[in-house]
């Protein structure tokens, strides 16, 4: 915290180190988008910068929200988002195609995005309300599964597998931290491990092939594996120091598909090399560590669980994307937050950060003698 007589206190009390970190990551992203457009702020870099600044302001504004306010809004917000999801699915069904957003005036609202922080908050709230003794009981389990299962189902039928996985992972993280018995997590994993090969063996050849390609995209280098193969070429050819800013041939000559969205990290690693990539990963690690600290220092159970859930959201966002572009995970369409072009990921992550800042402020205000 900066303490100076010149700077007004509310400003001085902002978590400047965190803001600096987030702005640095986003600035790096804008630089990548500038290069991906062939050295131009159009069409991506400028727009992304403006969207980021807008949501940065929103996040800072959110940091003054009180925990009690958040708690009060959680359940109504959750219900509203579920209703919106149903509406979107209904529209998609009517249009006989994939539908992920609602157009409200000039805005394209993607309700599934809101579900990522919302699920963390909702489950945190649920476990806060649940008496401690019942966490390990059936009453502590089934409502959580329902709260998580309904939106997950609504999202996966959109179909948006990436978002669904994110929502489920955020929810499961909160449930894990809430102290649910471990068998809840181990048993399904074991069941899947046992059932998957059996189910696989019962599939038709073409179905099996689709799963093969999904799990190992490189077996189909001209089709589904094209993205991942080109992404690995971009990252691998960057080497330690990279090809240099604006000199990435893979991204500039369009060999790398989606070099400005889901595969932005490949663009980055191609031009900035291992060094650039590691710096970014460390920056994300610092962000996640900050979030985890907020969770650890939480005064209330809600603060603990929701901070951890929101942090998990950021963590999964970044790690799933990075695993995907480096060929460690199937391509599921998760963008790299603050780097990939696109407003929704920025919005979600900045909402998470805004909520985290709010929780963090309240930790300080409790301890601070000035409060």
């Amino acid at each position, binding site marked *: 915290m900066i303490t100076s007589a010149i700077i007004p206190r509310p400003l001085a009390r902002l978590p400047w180190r965190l803001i600096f970190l987030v702005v640095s990551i986003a600035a790096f992203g804008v630089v990548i988008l500038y290069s991906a457009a062939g050295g131009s702020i159009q069409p991506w870099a400028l727009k992304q910068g403006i969207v980021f600044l807008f949501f940065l302001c929103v996040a800072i504004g959110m940091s003054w929200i009180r925990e009690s306010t958040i708690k009060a809004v959680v359940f109504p917000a959750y219900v509203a988002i579920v209703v919106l999801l149903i509406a979107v699915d209904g529209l998609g069904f009517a249009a006989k195609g994939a539908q992920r957003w609602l157009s409200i005036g000039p805005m394209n609202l993607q309700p599934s995005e809101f579900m990522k922080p919302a699920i963390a908050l909702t489950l945190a709230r649920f476990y806060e309300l649940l008496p401690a003794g019942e966490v390990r009981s059936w009453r502590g389990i089934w409502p959580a599964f329902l709260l998580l299962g309904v939106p997950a189902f609504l999202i996966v039928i959109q179909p948006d597998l990436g978002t669904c996985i994110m929502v489920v992972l955020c929810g499961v993280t909160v449930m894990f931290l809430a102290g649910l018995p471990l068998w809840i997590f181990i048993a399904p994993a074991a069941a899947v491990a046992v059932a998957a090969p059996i189910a696989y063996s019962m599939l038709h050849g073409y179905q099996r092939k689709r799963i093969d390609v999904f799990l190992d995209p490189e077996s189909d280098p001209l089709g589904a594996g094209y993205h991942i193969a080109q992404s690995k070429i971009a990252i691998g050819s960057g080497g330690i120091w990279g090809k240099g800013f604006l000199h990435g041939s893979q991204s500039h000559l369009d060999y790398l598909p989606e070099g400005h969205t889901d595969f932005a990290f490949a663009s980055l690693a191609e031009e900035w090399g291992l060094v650039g990539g590691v710096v970014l990963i460390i920056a994300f690690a610092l962000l996640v560590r900050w979030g985890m600290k907020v969770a650890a220092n939480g005064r209330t159970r809600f603060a603990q669980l929701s901070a951890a859930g929101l942090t998990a959201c950021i963590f999964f966002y970044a*790690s799933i994307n990075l695993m995907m572009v480096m060929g460690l995970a199937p391509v599921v369409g998760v963008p790299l937050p603050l780097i990939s072009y696109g407003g929704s990921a920025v919005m979600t992550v900045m909402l998470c950060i805004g909520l985290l800042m709010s929780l963090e402020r309240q930790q300080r205000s409790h301890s601070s003698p000035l409060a």
Partner: protein
Amino acid sequence: MKPIRITNTHQSMTFSRRMLVLGGAQAAIGSLLIGRLGWLAIAQNEKYQLLSESNRVQLIPVPPRRGWIIDRNGKPIAINRASFRVDIIPQQLEKGRDIVPDVARLLDLTEEDVARIRGELAESRGFHPVQVGENVTYEQYAAVTVRLPDLPGVQATRGYSRYYPDGPAVAHLVGYVGTANAKEYEAENKNPLLIIPGFKIGKQGLEKTLEPYLRGVPGGQRIEVTARGKLVKELDPKPDRSGQTVQLTIDQGLQQYAARRMGDQSGALVAMDVTSGDMLAFVSMPAFDPNSFSEGIGRTEWKMLSENDHIPLLNKVAQGLYPSGSTIKPAMALAFLKQGIDPKRRVVCNGGYQIGNRYFRCDAVHGSMDMRSAIERSCNTYFWATGLITDPEQTTEMVNYLGYGEEFDLDIPTQRYGTMPSPKWLEKKYHREWQGYDSANTSIGQGYVLINPMQLAVMPARLASGKLLEPRLLMAKPRKPIAALDVDPAHLAIVRDAMTAVVNEHGTAVASKLPLDGIRMAGKTGTAQVFRLGERGHQGTWALRDHALFIAFAPADKPRYAIGCIIEHGGFGASAAAPIVRDSMTYLFDQQKAWAALEPLEQQWGGTLAERNARELAAFKSASRAGA
């Protein structure tokens, strides 16, 4: 439920513990990510850098210009002409729009072409261009070029195409070029050069055998391209190197003259320089036009060529085999002399000769013959009688030594060299003993005797020079020292003298004396039975008529050139083959006189070779159209 009572303290302990697990897992995943990044960027950097480069840079081979083929005097035989071509790249075609009719209209394509283009488009592999028109005129090229924006997928380019100024006259010598087929493409390990539109490789003749020299080295244009194939910039190009010019020993003038002099007959003529073995003419007629073959021959023209009974698609010089007929007699005579037969020894010809229970009929009642008059008048009786008192094995050896039945070391793709029968050969091949009639047949070049037209020139060349000449086609081939023939020069003189008499005294070819002062030609006629022994001469059906042969050298006293000629089903050697040899020989000494002799003949045949060919094709086309 478990009996443990869970309190808030308990819960916060669980939370802290699980936070540690979660943090640990997050750290582990973070490390995994950094490890993976390091593995890709450091350990596999080289591999991916290579892949990235091969993505970025494309090498477009720039086809080299094919080397020329020139004659001994530097006159062109096969050259390159600037040409314009139009292709369709199936991948770039707009779906649902048929541009073939538009292109067909611009280029005046026939229905046959349109059908071919449609067929090729249907089975094309996307990026491989389909040829629409080759050697289109500049006007057509320009017409397509200005409309290119309206014709997506069409490509108009300028390049070079092979051109043979003498057309059919050199067809069987040089062969032709064509687009590489799938097999040739595979055979060269999918050399990308071979699938460049318009790139041709040698398919036949010298174009095929000299391919390594003629092709040259392709250049490369290294370009940076986007994933969509859009050119970004050109990188340093590698210049191409044109193919080498290959000089032949052929005399282009003589080649063309002999081809035209044959008229509409089917035959072959080979001329040699007897001082060096250089082949001056290598003519097989009638022939296809290698120019139209190189452009990809139309179906109609192909049909016309393959249906022709004069077999224009066969290289008669290298692959035609014929009985030598009486052209074998000078060699026979030399063999007899070597075996001690006295040239003055006389045989009386009563018009035939009895061997065993069979009577062999001679062409005439020649009366008392010695060696000289027997060659001069081509008396079979003398050779039958003498053949029976000499050793057939030794005789064959001599004839073989003079070139009949010999395979020559020449750069032509295929060569059939025929047979010179001997008792040993007969035993091996047919498991039977050599009989008197075998000697008789062989001594007049019938029976098993089969020779090719090159041997027909090599033999008089060896007799004339007294050297063991080897035919040569390439000027650049090192000249080996030529050994003298292992024969008594006196014997050679007797044979040469008799051959001189054939043309200049009372012989069978006196009608074919050279029309030149002081230059006499020596020769020997041959008439080879095709159908049945004993029935000679004028059959009604062309295909049953005898082959006419003539071998010659000139000047008789100081030999310079030798020529061998066969006219298929030409009748008597003296009447069909000898005049062609005479005029071709005249050409070598006095071109004006030779052209003057050809002019009235061509008028009589109805125009020059080129004019007649064009007319024939047009007639065939209209006939086949009417038939269809």
